[in-house]
C-alpha cells in the first residue's frame, strides 16, 4: 500500500499535512490500519481496532477540509485509547473479562475532547486489567510486548498505549497513571508520556481504579506531541467534581521556551541502591544536558519517599475494592451462567470475571477499610500522603522542577516478575510519590542500555506546573536525539 509513511511521524506533521491537503486523513488511517494488520500480532497493543469507525470519521474530516472548514488542532490525526476510556458504542473492557461485551451508552470527556479536536480514534489499547500492574501481563486478553524487544514487557498498566506509539501503530494515545501507569511504560518503550496534575484532565468516562489517584494523560513520540494532546484534553469539566477550574496552559509554546535560569532539583532519595547503573548514568548525563541548556541544578530532599509505595498500596487497594464493587453481573458485563442464589450470582460472576491481580487488590482493600482498622490503615495512609505532598511543596519552594529516573530498571522479560507481586510493585518506586502528591510528571527517553532498551527520564513539576515540565522536557529533547530513534519494524514477527 502506498500513501504517507506514518512510521515515526509526529502529530504536528500529520495534522499539518491534513490541513494543507498534502494527504488525507483517510490515507493516514489506512496507513496505520496497514501497520496494525502487519505488526500488531507481534506487539499485541490493540484489543479492538475500529476500522469502520476510523474510516468514517477520517472521511468526515477530509470532507470538512475540502469544504474549507477548520478541522481542529488534531484534525484527521489517528490516535488510539487505552481501553479504560469509555467510548460510546464501542466495546470498553478495561482489559477485564468482567466487562467483555460492555458497549457504553455514553462518551467520556477525554476521548470526547480528542474527537471534538478532530482526532480519529483507531481503536482500544491493551492494558493491565483495571490498570493494575506494571508490565501489562495482567490483561485478560494476553500481554503486550515491548516493540524494542519482543521478549520483554512494555511496562504497565498503559502498556498498549506506550507500545502502540513506540511501534507507530498510532500517532499518539491516551493512558492513565495511578501510580506510574503512564510514565513507567513510556520509559520502558522509549516514548514520552505525561501524568498531569490531579484534576487537570477530567476523569469522567475513565473507568475508575483508585479515584483519588487516577490521572488520565497522553502519550506521544515527542514532547510536543504530548503537549499538543494535553492542550486538547486538559481543562475544567463540570462532570468531574475533582476537576480544576483553571485555564489551560500554553504547553506547546513551553516546549520551545528554553530553560535559562530554570531551577532543577535532584532528590537524593531517588538515587539510591537498587537502581540499574546504566539508568543512573543516563539520568546523570541528562542533568548535565539540562545544566548546559541553562538550568541551575541543585540537590533536594523528599524525606518521606521511603513510605510512598506502602502508602500507595493502602490508598489504591482501598479505593479499588470500592470502585470494583459495581461489577456484580446485574447490569452490564459478565454474568455467570450458573447461579442459584443472589450470593452465588455475585461470587461466581466476580470469581469468573476478575483476574488474580484485581482479586488480590479487592481483598487487600477490603481488609484495609474494615471496621475498626480505618485509622490504622487508610486513615494513616492519608496522613502520610499529606506528608509526601508536603515534601514536594517544600522542594518546589526552591526549585521549578525535579528530575529523577522514571523506573529503576529497563524493560524486564515477560514472566520475570509475575511470581512476585512485591517485586512488581517496586517497579513503581519513583513514580508513586508524584501520583500521591497529585503533581504533574512526565517521562521521556534519555538513552538506551547496552542491550538497546530505552531509559526514561522523569521531570516533575509543582501542582498545575505542566508548563515548567514542558519547558524542561522540551529543552532536553531539543538538545538530544533519543526521541528520533525508532524500534525496527523488521523483526516484528511473533516470537515462538
Amino acid at each position, binding site marked *: 500500500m502506498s500513501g504517507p509513511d506514518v512510521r515515526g511521524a509526529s502529530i504536528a506533521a500529520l495534522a499539518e499535512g491534513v490541513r494543507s491537503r498534502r494527504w488525507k486523513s483517510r490515507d493516514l488511517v489506512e496507513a496505520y490500519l496497514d501497520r496494525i494488520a502487519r505488526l500488531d500480532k507481534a506487539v499485541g497493543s490493540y484489543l479492538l481496532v475500529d476500522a469502520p469507525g476510523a474510516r468514517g470519521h477520517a472521511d468526515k474530516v477530509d470532507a470538512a477540509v475540502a469544504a474549507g472548514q477548520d478541522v481542529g488542532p488534531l484534525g484527521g490525526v489517528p490516535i488510539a485509547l487505552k481501553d479504560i*476510556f*469509555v467510548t460510546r458504542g464501542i466495546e*470498553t473492557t*478495561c482489559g477485564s473479562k468482567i*466487562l467483555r461485551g*460492555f458497549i*457504553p*451508552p*455514553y462518551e*467520556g470527556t477525554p476521548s470526547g475532547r480528542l474527537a471534538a479536536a478532530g482526532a480519529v480514534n483507531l481503536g482500544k489499547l491493551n492494558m493491565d486489567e483495571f490498570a493494575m500492574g506494571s508490565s501489562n501481563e495482567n490483561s485478560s486478553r494476553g500481554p503486550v510486548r515491548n516493540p524494542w524487544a519482543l521478549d520483554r514487557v512494555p511496562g504497565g498498566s498503559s502498556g498498549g498505549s506506550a507500545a502502540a506509539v513506540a511501534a507507530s501503530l498510532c500517532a499518539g494515545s491516551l493512558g492513565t497513571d495511578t501510580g506510574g501507569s503512564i510514565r513507567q511504560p513510556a520509559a520502558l518503550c522509549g516514548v514520552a508520556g505525561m501524568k498531569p496534575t490531579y484534576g487537570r484532565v477530567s*476523569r*469522567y*468516562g*475513565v*473507568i*475508575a481504579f483508585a*479515584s*483519588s489517584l487516577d490521572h488520565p494523560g497522553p502519550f506521544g513520540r515527542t514532547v510536543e506531541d504530548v503537549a499538543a494532546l494535553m492542550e486538547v484534553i486538559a481543562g475544567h469539566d*463540570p*462532570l*468531574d*467534581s*475533582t476537576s480544576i477550574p483553571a485555564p489551560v496552559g500554553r504547553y506547546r509554546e513551553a516546549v520551545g521556551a528554553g530553560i535559562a535560569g530554570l531551577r532543577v532539583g535532584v532528590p537524593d532519595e531517588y538515587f539510591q541502591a537498587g537502581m540499574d547503573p546504566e539508568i543512573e548514568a543516563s539520568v546523570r548525563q541528562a542533568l548535565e544536558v539540562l545544566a548546559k541548556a541553562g538550568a541551575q541544578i541543585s540537590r533536594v530532599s523528599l524525606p518521606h519517599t521511603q513510605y510512598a509505595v506502602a502508602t500507595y498500596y493502602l490508598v489504591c487497594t*482501598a*479505593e479499588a*475494592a*470500592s470502585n*470494583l*464493587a*459495581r461489577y*456484580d453481573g*446485574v*447490569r*452490564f458485563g459478565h454474568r455467570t451462567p450458573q447461579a442459584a442464589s*443472589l450470593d452465588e450470582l*455475585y461470587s461466581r460472576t466476580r470469581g469468573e470475571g476478575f483476574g488474580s491481580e484485581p482479586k488480590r487488590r479487592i481483598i487487600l482493600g*477490603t481488609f484495609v*477499610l*474494615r*471496621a475498626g482498622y*480505618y485509622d490504622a490503615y*487508610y486513615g494513616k495512609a492519608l496522613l502520610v500522603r499529606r506528608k509526601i505532598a508536603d515534601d514536594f511543596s517544600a522542594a518546589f519552594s526552591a526549585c521549578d522542577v525535579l528530575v529523577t529516573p522514571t523506573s529503576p530498571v529497563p524493560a524486564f522479560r515477560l514472566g520475570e516478575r509475575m511470581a512476585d507481586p512485591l517485586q512488581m510493585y517496586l517497579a513503581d518506586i519513583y513514580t508513586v510519590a508524584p501520583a500521591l502528591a497529585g503533581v504533574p510528571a512526565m517521562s521521556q527517553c534519555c538513552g538506551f542500555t547496552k542491550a538497546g532498551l530505552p531509559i526514561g527520564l522523569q521531570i516533575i513539576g509543582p501542582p498545575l506546573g505542566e508548563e515548567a515540565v514542558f519547558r524542561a522536557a522540551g529543552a532536553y529533547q531539543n538538545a538530544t536525539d533519543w526521541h528520533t530513534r525508532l524500534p525496527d519494524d523488521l523483526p516484528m514477527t511473533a516470537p515462538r
Partner: protein
Amino acid sequence: MNALDKYEPVIGLEVHVQLATRSKIFSDSSAAFGAEPNSATDPVCLGLPGTLPVLNRAAVESAIRFGLAVGANIRRRSRYARKHYFYPDLPKGFQISQYDEPLCEGGAISFRIKDQPRQVRLTRIHMEEDAGKNLHAAAGASFVDYNRAGVPLCEVVSEPDVRSAEEASEYMRAVRTLVRFLGISDGNMEEGSLRCDANVSLRLRGETKFGTKAELKNINSFKNVRDAIEHEIGRQAALLDRGARVVQESRLWDAARGVSVAMRSKEQAHDYRYFPEPDLPPLAVDEAWLARARASLPELPEERFKRYTTESGLTPQDAGVLVSERDIADYFDAVVAASKTAGAATAGVPVAKKVANWVLNEVLARIDDARKLGSPDLPVSPSALAELVDLVEDGTLSGKLGKDVFARMWQDGRRAAEIVKTESVSQVSDAGVIEAACQKVIAANPDEVARYKAGKVQVIGFLVGAVMKETGGKANPKTVNEILKRLL
C-alpha cells in the same frame, strides 16, 4: 400487669425523607415518582463504569433548610462517604452517604401530643442517595427498577427520646408536616417519600441504663409505625418477662402479617467500610448561602400554632388541625387576610375563630386530601370564603343561610354575593315583614301561646321555628325572637 406499667420503651427513629428536587442528587435524570421502570435513569445513577457524581445543590439547599427549621447546627464543611454493601438495587455496590461529617448536627422536632408540647432531639441529619427498587415477579424472576436510584434523601436521626408508639407516630407526622411546610418533600409515606426505621428497647421503669435494642426496618405508614412499635414492645416485654434476653438485631416489619421477622444479628451486621468519597470534594456551606436559606424559610408550624392560639384566639385543637398541613394554614390565613370583618369580634367571639370553623367544618369536610386546598381549581377560593364570612358577619345571611350558600358555592364555583343577589336568599330583617309573619303564627297557634303565657317560656322556640318556616328561613332569628316576645 400491663407491659407499659413495668417497662419503659426507649425509642429512637431514623426517618428517610425523599427530597422533591427536579433531578437526582448526583446526576441529571428526573427524580419524580411513578415513571415507567428504568426510564428515569442515566449513566451516573446506573453506576456505569467511568461515571462520576456531581452534587445537586438544590438537594443540599433543601437539607440545609430542614436543618435550619429544626434548629440544627449546619456544618460549614461536611463530607460525603461511601457505604458499601452488595444488593441488586444498589448500582455501585456502595451508597454515597455521609458518615463522620454530616451536614447537620443537633436540633429538635417539636410537636404536640394531646395539646401538650413535646420535643424530640435530633442527633444528626445527613444526606444520601436512594437505592433502586427490586421487583419480584411471580415466576421467581426478579427485576430492578433504578428510577429511584439516586433520588436525594435526608436521613433524620433522632436521639432515643421517644417513649411510646403513639409518640413515634406523632413524631413522624410532625416531620411530614414540617417537610411539607418547607416544600422540600411531598412526604407521602405510601409512595416511600417518608420511610422510618425504629430502634426500640425496653427498660424497667426507674432504670436509667438503656436495654438492648432491636432495629425495626421497613415501616412505611403511620399505622405501621404505631403497629410495629407496639408489637415490638410486646415482643420484648414477653422475652424479658420470662427471663430471656433481647438480641441486638435488625427486624423487618411485615405489615400484612402484623409481625416482625429477624433479618440479621449484630454479628451478621454489614461492615459498611465507610471511607470519604474521593469523587466529591468536601462540601463547603458559607454564611451567604446559610443566610439565603434562612431567609427562604416560611413561618413554621409551631410558630403558626402559637400565633393562632394567642393572636387569633383559636383553641389548641383548632390551631392544631390548621397547622397540621401547610395548605390548610395558608388557606386559613388567606381567608382571614381577605375578610373585612376577620379582625373584629362579634358577641365576644373573634371572627378569626369563626373563619377557623368555616375552614374546619365546611371546607375540610368536603375534600379528601388537605393538600387540595392549595389547588387553584378549588371551587371556593380563600377570598370567596372571606366574602361569605363577611356577609354572615354583617347580618346579610344567617348562619344557616350561610351554610346553604357555601354548599352552592362549592357546587358551582359561584361567589356568595352573586348567589345572594340572583336567588334573593338574603336574610329578612325588615321588622314589618317579620311582625306580620309573627302575628299570623300567633293567631294560628292559640294553644302554644296560652302555654307560653302560663310560664312555659321554652315554647318560644316552637313559635320562632314556625315564623322561620313562614318566611322561608330568611327571617333574622334574633329579630323574630324579639318581636314575638313583644307581641306576646
